[in-house]
């Protein structure tokens, strides 16, 4: 009888341990799912807004801008892409650069996102890192090859919302690519951010960032 009770005790301890392990492992797994769910929800929102044919171009751009500002860390990315030159720049020029960089992003990605908004979007896995999540996804346009897109997603400070801090398509990261370009340009401009601002503004005006329709 004594043996039996100790057996029962052991089983109970084992079950408790198992339950504890399950709980421990389920915790972070749920958080990962959240980051994936967040992106899926964002994609749904983007479809309904960006693929609406009745909306004028102007209105669409406005909606995209709103989505961008709410879900992308535009300011953080803008700071990142000019690297060490951020520290040296004057406050006015910094503010101006953030505004211009947003325009660059809108001109560059509004056509792409509108084009891909309705395509088959799948979250394949979510990998938690120390301070962010990597959300793996595949996007397949109607008659194209599936492309792997990675999203660097962070939790917003002091809230349960998420924010996207980088995108990488087929291993090419948006932040790193722009950073290399802009820091190098700034180096040859003597580190003067206002000159880069002027250059970028000219490029925006001539529509240089917009991808061609049929490519």
């Amino acid at each position, binding site marked *: 009888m004594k043996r039996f009770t100790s057996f029962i005790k052991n089983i109970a301890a084992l079950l408790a341990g198992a339950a504890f392990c399950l709980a421990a492992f389920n915790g972070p797994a749920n958080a990962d799912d959240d980051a994936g769910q967040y992106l899926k929800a964002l994609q749904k929102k983007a479809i309904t807004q960006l693929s609406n044919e009745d909306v004028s171009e102007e209105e669409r751009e406005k909606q995209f801008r709103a989505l961008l500002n709410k879900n992308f860390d535009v300011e*953080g990315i803008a*700071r*990142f892409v000019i*690297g*060490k030159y*951020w*520290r040296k720049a004057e406050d006015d020029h910094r503010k101006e650069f953030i505004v211009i960089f947003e325009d660059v992003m809108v001109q*560059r990605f509004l056509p792409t996102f509108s084009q891909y908004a309705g395509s088959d979007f799948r979250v394949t896995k979510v*990998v938690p*890192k*120390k*301070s*962010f999540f*990597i959300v*793996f996804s595949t996007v397949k346009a109607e008659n194209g090859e599936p492309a*792997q897109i*990675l999203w*660097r997603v962070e939790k917003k400070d002091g809230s349960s919302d998420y924010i996207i801090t*980088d995108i*990488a398509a*087929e*291993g*090419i*990261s948006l932040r*790193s*690519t722009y*950073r*290399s*370009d*802009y*820091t*190098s*340009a700034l*180096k*040859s401009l003597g580190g003067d951010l206002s000159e*880069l601002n002027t*250059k*970028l503004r000219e*490029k925006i005006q001539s529509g*240089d*960032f917009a*991808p*061609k329709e*049929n*490519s």
Partner: protein
Amino acid sequence: MTVETNDRRNVVGLGILSEINSRLIKRLVAFTAVAIFVTGCASKPNSTLQDEANASTDDQWAQTEGSTAVDEGDNDPIETVNRFIFAFNDAADTIIFRPVAEGYRFLVPSPIRDSVRNFIRNTYTPVILANDLLQGDIEKAENTFARFLINTIAGAGGLADVASQTGLEYHSEDFGQTMGTWGVPEGPYLVLPILGPSNVRDGVGLIGDALLDPLTYVAKTEVLIGRKVTDGIDKRSRNIETVDELKRDSVDFYARVRSLYHQKRVNEINDGEAEPTLAPGLTDIFPEDDDQVSYAE
């Protein structure tokens, strides 16, 4: 009579084979020596860098190509020379290659262009197969071998890519990638005349690929150059718009290409996995510690 000629042919054949063998072995030995030498050179300065990085960060993936390296010019110590060659290549592209590629695309119908590409790809099979094996990737090696058999037999000597329709997709491997999977660091960025963006490791890799290619030893030089040129024109004809867009889109085209080349190679070495599990020293697409550097004020 016929027996005699057959015999002679056999003898000649064997003679060529043995000569190829001895030449191949000699070259491979020399090549391995060079590769080891370069590897040693390239990894030495980096290891001190890594030690320093190790001291400051506990994330092992964020160290090699930490943000410091990005800020200090993407490992490009001979930037002036590189920019000069880049400008030369760009001019040559504007005057010769882009127009030729455009003409090729305009004049030759798409199915024929695809056949040309398939044929050239098929001739590179031994190189890809050798690299698959050197990387220890048996699955890919099988894929490469099966593709070769299917396309050579059922695809009329490689003109049609029948294999990809059965799910055996083409993949490319080169010796630069192979060295990358072994943990060889890429070394300083290089722009090669005509051949374009590269780095020390991948430059050595080009020599390695030539040595791994049986055609190097049996085909005439004209044939080899012809294949290379055709391959180049075909590749250029497939990215005319992409390159145009890139040029318009970037402020510093040279820096943009340098960054893209680096990222593309890392991705190829990782085979599209964001987290390198095998080779240390490869970059994460999203390094863990870069915020601190950029946000420090």
